[in-house]
């Protein structure tokens, strides 16, 4: 069967134009919604700052300057954003398939471990081979770690939220074991880390003297590739269909189990690349506990970015700015660094609140047109709940086990 997104009918031109304008409308409203949500979160954050006795204007101005005011701050913002881009993309891909991949953290960690170790081995390979080899290792390991919960859900219905969280803890243990004292992958220095990655495996710096590196470019390329994958390929179509309505997907002959497993694998693959980018581009070697929770922040990035590659990149830059500006904010206005975490949580709540309200409004509009009897169950409506492709035809999905 043909899976053509815009059917070529006789009135194809007219149909395409109105489709295009609806798409633009949805995109703009999504963007405004996210921007509005961020604004509200910052407002609430300002109130929090006020309550704790500091000046929000001073704080926010310092935040902005600390994030964007100059080459060094800008570089640091991008450095902070890079792993978040990968993580956000990873989360989005899984989410598009209807899966909640909380395991980005573990996939990122193990991917980084793989890349770090491969990067440190003296294979005698030129950069053209060594670096991709390390990246591939990260992708394989991350992909595996992502495929596990996907396959478990497909086969046994095990809820991916819990399985991925358990796998995160397991990944942390594996890491601690691998590079801990007498660990098999540990390097020679007295550090819980691998040996430093050889030059032939490192990701180059982009600007001399700054930390921003090729990892950023890799992330942007991945964003572009993910966009293409999701919106221009058959597989992407399958992923999105499965995520929006499992019943419709089954009707179209799409294998739910296989699609979600592949989506989770792709998600883990991206997360693994993120870990590799941190290890090979920024840190120079794999350290145990190198990730200050990138995986969890990625969840926020995905949600704020509406699970769209473009949105994810923008959201990652936003959060990167929040992180790199936090230190400046602390020294200028005396606010504590944990405030950033609270701001992030506020942004998430705010974004999802906007989306929930929008969904309520759409639901009410539908209800006034149809007779009562259409209910929405959580699974199929999840996409609508975060403001993507509003579920204009709220058809109940078959029971999700």
């Amino acid at each position, binding site marked *: 069967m043909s899976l053509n997104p815009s059917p070529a009918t006789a009135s194809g031109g007219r149909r395409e134009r109105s489709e295009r304008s609806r798409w633009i409308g949805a995109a703009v409203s999504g963007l405004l919604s996210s921007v509005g949500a961020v604004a509200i979160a910052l407002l609430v954050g300002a109130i929090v700052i006020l309550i704790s006795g500091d000046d929000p204007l001073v704080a926010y101005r310092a935040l902005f300057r600390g994030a964007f005011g100059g080459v060094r701050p800008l570089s640091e913002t991008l450095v902070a954003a890079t792993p978040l881009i990968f993580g956000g993309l990873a989360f989005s891909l899984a989410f598009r398939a209807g899966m909640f991949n909380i395991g980005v953290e573990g996939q990122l960690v193990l991917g980084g471990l793989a890349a770090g170790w491969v990067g440190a081995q003296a294979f005698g390979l030129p950069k053209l081979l060594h670096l991709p080899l390390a990246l591939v290792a990260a992708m394989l390991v991350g992909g595996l770690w992502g495929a596990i919960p996907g396959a478990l859900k497909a086969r046994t219905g095990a809820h991916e939220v819990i399985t991925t969280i358990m796998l995160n803890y397991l990944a942390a243990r594996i890491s601690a074991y691998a590079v801990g004292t007498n660990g098999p992958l540990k390097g020679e220095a007295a550090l819980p880390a691998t040996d430093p990655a050889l030059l032939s495996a490192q990701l180059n710096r982009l600007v001399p003297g700054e930390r921003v590196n090729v990892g950023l470019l890799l992330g942007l390329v991945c964003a572009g590739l993910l966009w293409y994958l999701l919106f221009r390929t058959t597989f992407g179509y399958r992923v999105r269909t499965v995520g929006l309505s499992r019943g419709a997907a089954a009707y179209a002959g799409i294998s739910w189990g296989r699609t979600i497993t592949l989506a989770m694998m792709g998600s883990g693959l991206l997360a693994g690349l993120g870990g590799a980018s941190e290890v090979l581009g920024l840190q120079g070697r794999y350290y145990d506990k190198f990730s200050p929770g990138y995986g969890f922040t990625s969840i926020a990035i995905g949600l704020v970015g509406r699970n769209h590659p473009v949105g994810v990149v923008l959201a990652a830059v936003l959060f990167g700015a929040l992180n790199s500006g936090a230190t400046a904010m602390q020294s200028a206005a005396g606010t504590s660094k944990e405030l950033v975490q609270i701001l992030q949580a506020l942004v998430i709540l705010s974004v999802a609140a906007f989306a929930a309200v929008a969904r309520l409004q759409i639901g009410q509009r539908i209800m006034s047109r149809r007779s009562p009897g259409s*209910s929405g169950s*959580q699974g199929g409506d*999840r996409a609508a709940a975060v403001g993507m492709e509003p579920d204009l035809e709220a058809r109940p999905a078959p029971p999700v086990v």
Partner: protein
Amino acid sequence: MASPLIFASMGGLLSERSGVMNIALEGFMLMGAFSAAAGAHYTGNPYLGLLIGALAAGFTALIHAFWCITLRGDQIVAGTAINLLGIGVPAFLLQRLFGTVGRSPTVERLPSITSGLNILVPVAFLLVPTIWYFLYRTKPGLRVLAAGEQPRAAESVGVAVDRYRYGCVLASGILAGIGGAFLSIGDLSLFTNGMTNGRGFIALAALVFGNWMPLGTLGAALFFGAAQAVQIQSQAVGLPVSKELIIALPYLLTLIALTGVVRNSTPPAGLGKHATAD
């Protein structure tokens, strides 16, 4: 050892049985743990600290309830956000109130009654049959079950589904908060960042493992608690097995439990569904 798990999983049981997916247990526990420690610090009385912990977690649960029930937001998104809050807010307040990063000052802990067990332990075990009785033998309890299985049918017969769900989520928050408080002022007498270490999720797994029934969940919680106890004991004794493997054991077991047993498990049919048409 299993007591915090028992509290949290009983709370999760109530919430999920009423039809609200609750993955925010971890966040509730953290808020409870921190508030209990802070409360005990400021009042000098561990029992008051316990109360404050329960109330704080209950308040957090209200946010979750408002989100999921009134706003009809996605329950998993809400849970994730609450968990993030559970990490961020205590850390923030820790720095603000105590000026320390990472751990709170030691506080008065709950007095022990026998060999180091504090009073919450028997309470936890008494809780299970109480909840069983409530759910299966009392009218409001049966209504809760109905709300969870067939919210629309229940609503049509006059059960105020949303109100029951609010109550259950609130209760889940209070119970999980007590579980968290157990960790900070019952067991250790201080709070450290992220001290729950995934127990909220393990409690959720116990719920699944126990097939959403009080007795089964108790069994599962004891099982996971035993795994954690083994982990701690073996660190003291120094078994010839890798330390990391021991620490990983509870999580690994949870994972296996989820996959192996889920075939037979039947979640409440109305989980995630709302009473009135969306």
